[in-house]
């Protein structure tokens, strides 16, 4: 009897693995092209493919958008620099200079760069593990990011945290328990509303963390009080080694709050991400309450460095995503098609990115390990600490 109860119970859990179909590959149809002047501030019009968005209880954002050429080149530069930085981290890990945990965002560059291009420094971001890219676009230097990974003094958290512990003034991290950051995002959004700051908080989590109970607790509070919070599910198809369909009863993450409208976005297209984030900021700051946003993206590497990333998905699938949906290749095509930059100019940007990253790595490597005095800092507010922190054996204490 018990066994049959269990089988019924498990019917929902035991989902057959589905063949992976990319949600929406990067559009290969060229956008409308109007401008050809070389002036940096000259606008380029972009038309997003119809398939860029799916919506739940709201009207689709406009598919038309405009960027200055300068802004386009800036996006491209950030994306290639970010990728180069992650490749450097990968190499440093393999050379055993970075130890412990390291979660790379290679393949997901359009998410952070697209989001950053649509918001400003009064808007806030919080996420969990895959945080290097956000730290970079939110103002963290490459040296400070690599330094943090290496556990050096120049690290953005003084080298005390490592991969998932990076923060910058408008970026609340970088958190170690997936899902735990989501209600924090709602709290940050509450302060924005309370203080009448016309700004939004993007509270990010992965498809894996989307099933944590706290996510739903945060949805409820945010809607109850109509907070300017956008719950962003970075759906990269796999929570660690488990595909979304095996972990989630509904993989339509943008609909999962029910009473909160949602939007699904091609997260491999930096323009679509930009447009969705801009739309979300307007929506939330105009008092309409929270939004749920699903960004369909893909990580090229494993969940972490110890995961080759090929045991639960095929090499062909990864190769297919790289060749059809790569966010950098997609943007590059736009730049070429719109004569924003030539192939040679883009190559120069790539080369410069490599140089910048290489130099930053060298500087980070030259940075010493954090001084032992940092062992006891940042536990309590300076001046209000207990008189001392106890150490390993009696007598070995640190007195503040």
């Amino acid at each position, binding site marked *: 009897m018990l066994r049959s109860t269990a089988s019924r119970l498990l019917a929902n859990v035991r989902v057959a693995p589905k063949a992976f179909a990319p949600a929406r590959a990067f559009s290969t149809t060229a956008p409308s092209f109007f401008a050809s002047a070389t002036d940096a501030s000259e606008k380029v019009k972009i038309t997003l493919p119809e398939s860029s968005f799916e919506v739940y209880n709201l009207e689709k954002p406009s598919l038309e958008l405009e960027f200055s050429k300068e802004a386009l080149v800036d996006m491209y530069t950030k994306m290639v620099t970010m990728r180069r930085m992650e490749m450097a981290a990968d190499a440093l890990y393999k050379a055993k200079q970075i130890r412990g945990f390291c979660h790379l965002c290679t393949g997901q560059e359009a998410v952070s760069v697209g989001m950053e291009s649509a918001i400003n420094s009064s808007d806030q971001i919080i996420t969990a593990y895959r945080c290097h890219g956000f730290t970079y676009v939110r103002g963290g230097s490459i040296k400070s990011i690599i330094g943090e990974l290496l556990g050096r003094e120049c690290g953005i958290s003084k080298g*005390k*945290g490592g991969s998932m512990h990076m923060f910058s003034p408008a970026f609340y991290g970088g958190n170690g328990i*997936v899902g735990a950051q989501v209600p924090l995002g709602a709290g940050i959004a509450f302060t924005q509303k309370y203080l009448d700051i016309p700004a939004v908080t993007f509270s990010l989590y992965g498809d894996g963390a989307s099933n944590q109970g706290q996510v739903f607790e945060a949805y409820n509070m945010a809607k109850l009080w109509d907070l300017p919070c956008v719950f962003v599910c970075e759906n990269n198809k796999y929570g660690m080694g488990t595909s979304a369909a095996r972990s989630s009863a509904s993989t339509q993450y943008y609909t999962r709050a029910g009473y909160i409208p949602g939007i699904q976005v091609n997260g491999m297209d930096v323009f679509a991400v930009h447009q969705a984030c801009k739309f979300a900021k307007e929506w939330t700051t105009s008092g309409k309450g929270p939004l749920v946003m699903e960004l369909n993206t893909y990580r090229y590497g494993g969940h972490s460095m110890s995961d080759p990333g090929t045991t639960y998905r095929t090499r062909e699938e990864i190769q297919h995503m790289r060749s059809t949906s790569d966010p950098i290749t997609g943007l590059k095509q736009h730049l070429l098609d719109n004569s924003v930059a030539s192939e040679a100019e883009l190559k120069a940007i790539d080369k410069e990115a490599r140089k910048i990253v290489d130099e930053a790595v060298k500087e980070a490597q030259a940075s010493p390990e954090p001084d032992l005095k*940092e*062992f006891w800092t940042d536990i309590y507010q300076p001046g209000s600490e207990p008189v001392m922190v106890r150490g390993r054996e009696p007598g070995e204490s640190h007195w503040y």
Partner: protein
Amino acid sequence: MLRILKSKAPNSCFRLTSAAFQSQRRLYADQPPPAEGFLPGVADSKLLKRTPEEALRNPELAALSAANGETEKMNFFQAINNALSTALATDETSVVFGEDVSFGGVFRATSGLAERFGRDRVFNTPITEQGIVGFGIGMAAVGHTAIAEIQFADYIFPAFDQIVNEAAKYRYRSGGIFNVGGLTIRTPCSAVGHGGHYHSQTPEAFFAHCPGVKIVMPRSPIQAKGLLLASIRDRNPVIFLEPKILYRAAVEEVPVSDYELPLGKAEVLKRGNNVTVVGYGTQIYKLENAIQLAEKHIPGLSCELIDLRTIVPLDIDTICESVNKTGRLVIGHEAPKTGGFAAEITTAVMERSFLRLEAPIQRVCGWDTPFPLAFEKFYMPDMIRCYDAIKKVTEY
């Protein structure tokens, strides 16, 4: 280094400590810490049973050697795997679940189980720790054997409420109508050399404060298999902490047949007359090394080493019996000192053996700081610190 730490250790001790520290520093100054962490001595530990004869010499396994004396070389995670396999084979209501367990889990402790026992008995859950434990409590309340895995002990805190308020109190608050005795929560714990804030903690003390759950932490493959089977079959919810650094580092000849080791019973690993040394999990190896060093440097000294194995219920009898003989007690654990389990042991011993104590009880614990990434080597209650403590109680 020690000057900064304001050590009040005697001079002779200072010299030795300092020298040992510096050799460690030299070793790590220009290269990263070893992948296996700062853990000298597991490979050479005399506590690990490397031959079938040694393995079966254990009186707790005496019955086994007569029935089926076959052993197999296993590391810690293979022994866990073997125990889970035994549990699944002998109890058809038992199921194993957790994040990524059907693929073998991040530490390979469940590899092959889904293939062997079916995906309806060994399955992945979403990333939902509170849900995993709550789900297990529900299953166990019906009478199932629920073997849940929390991927890292650091992730157990989202499930804290379920463990403390639901699992631990189900029997009590239902007046015995329901219980969750079939629930076992396995979770990898403790330092690994580079785990940082969220992949290194050892949370036994949080749960020790909660009546109704048992807490177990084995030190070796043989112990892991026997204690895990006992935990699974024990009619109380059990939190089974697996020191993750030992998964590959600790290798023994493990009996292949079905056996259990007793919960609530500490094991005296080495007899001695002058100092009682108590620990559990990874710390046992540091204590073993510290004892070797102490016995070498202090003529005539002999230490008694006790592995608690079960943190709750605490086998205070074994500890006090030893302390009554030696008069001196050193306790080591990785978790921070304040509110750590060593405090509980200290108090319990003081209550029962106050007049037998010859020296203040020494606790060698992790610092009262968050678990650090860059400073792990300074945080750890390493062999030298344990040695210092033994020396201190000896010279008191």
